[in-house]
């Protein structure tokens, strides 16, 4: 059984198998993502208003999942980076490269929704507190990784470079997570993932969790699509090179 599972896992390493599998899974994941998101957003609007914040608390149902996903995506990229460096898994680099823009967008959305929420609640669009700053640094790291992966056109070389940069930047993730505990900041401390259980009321926790699952599924769908596109792009480049080489060879053969 275990051996079978391992073989299945190595089968996915084959890009063609991966393309087939991802292609057949994608519609289901899209469907599940849209259903969960629809249900989650509906529940978010049915959820009670906060006694202090009024209706602006509903921003939480998208802001928090965006922020979680920004960190989840980076963690996944770090895992892919390990896959590239340790096992030289051919798909790990594809996964890292195609996740970076998605992660950057989620981080930007977390920052944007956060500052839209901050304007009525804190009275300012932006403060330089530890949580906000560290998430902003995360955004810059995403952009740096994107810039680096786009600067080197040889996939094998850019794979290692991006993997190393991602791993070095992973230091930032624990800083983001614990920034609200280490520093006394304007951003509220963790209220869902705590040792002594969530301090948020179940009537708000459930819509939040369902929204989070929905956005995670959406991320998964987008990521799989981006990975497929990246594999196809690499194949097209390889084929173009092959045909260019063949076209170069022909006149030589004709001259002979």
């Amino acid at each position, binding site marked *: 059984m275990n051996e079978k599972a391992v073989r299945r896992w190595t089968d996915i390493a084959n890009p063609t198998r991966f393309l087939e599998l991802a292609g057949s899974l994608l519609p289901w994941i899209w469907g599940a993502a849209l259903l969960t998101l629809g249900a989650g957003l509906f529940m978010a609007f049915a959820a009670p208003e906060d006694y202090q914040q009024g209706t602006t608390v509903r921003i939480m149902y998208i802001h928090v999942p965006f922020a979680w996903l920004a960190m989840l995506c980076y963690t996944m990229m770090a895992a892919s980076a390990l896959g590239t460096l340790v096992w030289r898994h051919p798909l790990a680099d594809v996964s890292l490269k195609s996740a970076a823009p998605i992660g950057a967008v989620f981080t930007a959305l977390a920052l944007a929704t956060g500052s839209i929420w901050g304007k009525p609640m804190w009275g300012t669009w932006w403060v330089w507190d530890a949580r906000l700053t560290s998430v902003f640094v995360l955004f810059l790291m995403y952009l*740096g990784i994107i810039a680096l992966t786009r600067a080197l056109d040889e996939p094998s*070389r850019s794979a*290692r*470079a991006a993997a*190393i*940069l991602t791993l*070095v*930047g992973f230091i*930032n993730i624990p800083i983001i997570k614990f920034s609200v505990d280490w520093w006394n900041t304007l951003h509220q401390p963790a209220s869902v993932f705590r040792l002594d259980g969530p301090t948020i009321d179940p009537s708000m926790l459930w819509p939040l969790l369902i929204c989070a699952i929905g956005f995670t599924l959406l991320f998964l769908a987008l990521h799989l699509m981006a990975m497929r596109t990246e594999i196809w792009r690499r194949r097209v480049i390889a084929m173009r090179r092959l045909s260019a080489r063949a076209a170069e060879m022909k006149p030589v053969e004709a001259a002979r």
Partner: protein
Amino acid sequence: MLALYLRDVKLGFRAGSGALTGVLFFLAVVTVIPFGVGPDLNLLARIGPAILWIGALLASLLGLDRLFQADREDGSLDLLLGAQDRHMLALTVLVKCLAHWTTAVLPLVIVTPLLGLFMNVPPIGLAAAMLTLLIGTPAITFIGAVGAALTVALPRGGLLVSVIILPLTIPVLIFGVAASRGAVAEPDPFLPPFLILSALTLFFAVIGPAAAALSLRGAAD
């Protein structure tokens, strides 16, 4: 290793471009600030240590892209990589970083008191800024080595190096400025941020060269 260090230091000082340009850039950055914020001496005294730190950070980014590129162009990088069974590559990178720091960053630290006078920083603040820069800037060089190694194969990697490593240097900047401000402003402590700064330098002295060595090996094959 000592020979490599001496060679790099000599190259750094004799090539003419390195050390002096960095110091001039530092001077230019610091001179521009009063034009931007106005010549209010009290304000300048308050933000002075921060300005010195930012200027030194930017100036020490300048030569970083040449850290390995020059060696790659004349082929000595291949020799260094080839000798990695005798000398651990991370150690070689560490020595190169130290040499780069000596030639490009140490002059910045030395001129700091002079520039601090322009900023109307009190003497004890000058001493604190110089001390924190002395302890903190090696961390910037070690982080920079990673960026330099990642972009070694790029023809114009200079800007990319800065973009990649600036986010990583933010902790160094935070604690460096906190420590140098702590020496002047009374309620803020000096020692805790200073010790964290030292810890950061030691931490990056391990992580930086190791990651840089890994990516140099990747760039070579």
